[in-house]
């Protein structure tokens, strides 16, 4: 079976399938923004990691709406299930008590306005770009349902270089972990 | 490496044995008693609080108020009183009060009784919020039982 294909009807009502799908899309986007805000603004590190996990979950939803369910699942499995958990694990093991982080007073007062303006600049740039581009509507890609045969073919032909490089990265990570663990033992 | 394989084999065998044991128990009948519905019969040598033995013919207590149990009691739980009825040779017990709060069920009273008048009861349902409920009038208890 195939994922829902959006046949853009001009004015979908709220209780049609398109309407509900639209609401869910807005929810995932809200999840991304909310998670990112929590991750940046909270004083407690574990809360920040939870925010990060929420943000990743929302991103998985966005990937699903972009017709790549395989990436969405991988986002959940790897980023929420492994990366966030390892970060949270590290924080839990390293800080003995839940403590509020001391405010970083030595950071220049310019940091806030500077960050805001750079962000605003990026936002404006992308908005201009997005609004002025003639968007082509591509046909639904071949492996939009996440059929593993298609994924396998793509991984071993078009993206074989990336695939091999990832295995080298993993090898390096394993060797690094071994080196660290060996040193710790003696 | 040889230890590795034998570990796996021996381990799996013991795991299967364990599962078989519990499976066998699963299909066997229940052994527990459903207490409020099934009242258990106490064993022969169970020690409840003491009670008076009634004469099988008359239903009156065998006790003649000789005070041996009262003297034998190490914690002064027992207080006995009796008087001589007209036309009888022996005394009859009129009062036999057991303070069960102090009793340690040592059995000295039962041992000291020479007239087959005292034994351990099979009573185990004793519970109360009030201490006075454990000061038991054994004469009255015997009358109630008859």
């Amino acid at each position, binding site marked *: *079976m*195939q*994922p*829902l294909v959006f046949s853009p009807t001009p004015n979908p009502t709220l*209780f*049609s*399938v398109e309407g*509900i799908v639209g609401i869910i899309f807005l929810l995932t986007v809200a999840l991304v923004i909310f998670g990112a805000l929590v991750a940046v603004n909270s004083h*407690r590190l*574990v*809360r920040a990691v*939870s925010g990060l*996990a929420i943000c990743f*979950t929302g991103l*998985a939803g966005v990937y699903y709406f972009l017709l790549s*369910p*395989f990436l969405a*699942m*991988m986002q*959940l*499995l790897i980023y*929420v*299930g*492994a990366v*966030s*958990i390892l970060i*949270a*694990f590290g924080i*839990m*093991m390293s800080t003995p008590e*839940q403590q509020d982080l001391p405010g970083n007073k030595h950071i220049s007062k310019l940091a806030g306005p500077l960050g805001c303006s750079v962000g605003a600049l990026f936002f404006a740039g992308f908005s201009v770009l997005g609004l002025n581009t003639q968007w082509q509507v591509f046909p639904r890609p071949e492996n939009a*349902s*996440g*059929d*593993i*045969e298609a994924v396998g073919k793509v991984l071993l032909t078009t993206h074989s270089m990336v695939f091999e490089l990832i295995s080298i990265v993993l090898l390096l990570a394993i060797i690094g972990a071994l080196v660290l663990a060996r040193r710790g033992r003696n | 490496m040889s230890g*590795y394989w034998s570990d*796996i084999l021996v381990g799996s065998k013991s*795991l299967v044995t*364990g*599962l078989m*044991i*519990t*499976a066998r*128990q*699963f*299909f*066997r*009948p*229940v*052994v*527990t008693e*459903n207490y409020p519905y099934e009242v258990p019969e106490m064993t022969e040598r169970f020690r409840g609080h003491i009670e008076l033995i009634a004469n099988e013919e008359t239903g009156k207590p065998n006790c003649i108020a000789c005070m041996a149990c009262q003297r034998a009691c190490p914690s002064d739980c027992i207080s006995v009183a009796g008087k001589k009825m007209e036309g009888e040779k022996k005394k009859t017990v009129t009062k036999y009060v057991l303070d069960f709060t102090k009793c340690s069920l040592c059995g000295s009273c039962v041992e000291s009784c020479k007239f087959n008048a005292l034994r351990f009861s099979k009573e185990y349902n004793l519970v109360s919020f009030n201490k006075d409920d454990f000061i038991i009038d054994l004469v009255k208890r015997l009358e109630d039982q008859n």
Partner: protein
Amino acid sequence: METSIWRPILYLVGIMAFAGLNAAYLGWCERKGAGRIQRRPGPKEVGFAGLLQPLADGIKLMTKQLMVPQGVDGIIFRVAPVIAMIPAITSMVVIPFSGNIQARAMELSVLLIFALASLGMMAVLLGGWASGNKYAIISSARAVSQNLAYEIPMLLTVISIVMISGSMNLRDIAIDQQGGFWHWNIFRFENGHFLYMWIGFIIFFICSLAETNRAPFDMAEAESELVAGYMTEYGSMGFGLFMMGEYLNIVVGACLTATLFLGGWDCPFGLTPGVWWFLLKIYVLIFTVIWVRWTYPRTQIYRLLNLSWKILIPFSLVNVLVTAALIKVF
């Protein structure tokens, strides 16, 4: 696929009902089973044979005060039990109960279930941390290291199944095994898979016990050493949600095992396939889980990790290699 609005709503209601009934009555089954194994009757007072016991427990849990102790992280503490429930219920969306009872036959349903299972891990971690209690933190650290260690052999055995069926769709995997028990992945006759697939089945079953934090791998709530583990500070419905999440994870694990290895809704003799066979299979598996729990004592955390890294992972790696070789050779 018909895109009627009623289909998702009906499936939502159906899945909620299935999940709720299972979460409530598996507790009863567990207590009855434990009772029988220990030669006692189990719950019997509330209703006939104690059948209303889950209702009584539910009322009791719901009417209790939701205590949030001092020094906990309030928001995470309240949210964690909810996160524990979400993945368990969501996973049921892709489970094929029979050829035509499945909420959504996603192409990547196996992957979806594993992705959601890792969300459940997050709930345990956050719940334990937010309690601000040493026992809870130790317990959640244990739970996570255990789950990470057992995810590897589990995924490896699933990969061998996916290679045989050529699909990650649970429905396709189940359809691939139709037509009698000699087609099921565990005894699959063609290509000689039956020679070793039962090892894969045992590995998968052990991993699913460990992933759902069930005895003998219930390190996370080892009550003799860690009070109640990550649930130490939880009372009332917070605790109730964690419990229900645990039982639903067992149900999802059993559904996954039944679909991947035992032919899903297929009848062993090729007659009358249907949802009843699927239910029969998952409840036999769930009974086995309960049976195992009341048979074995708890292992120790390092033995648990040794079992995973020294036995299960090598075996499942060899399993994948042998599967690939047999598929290519024949």
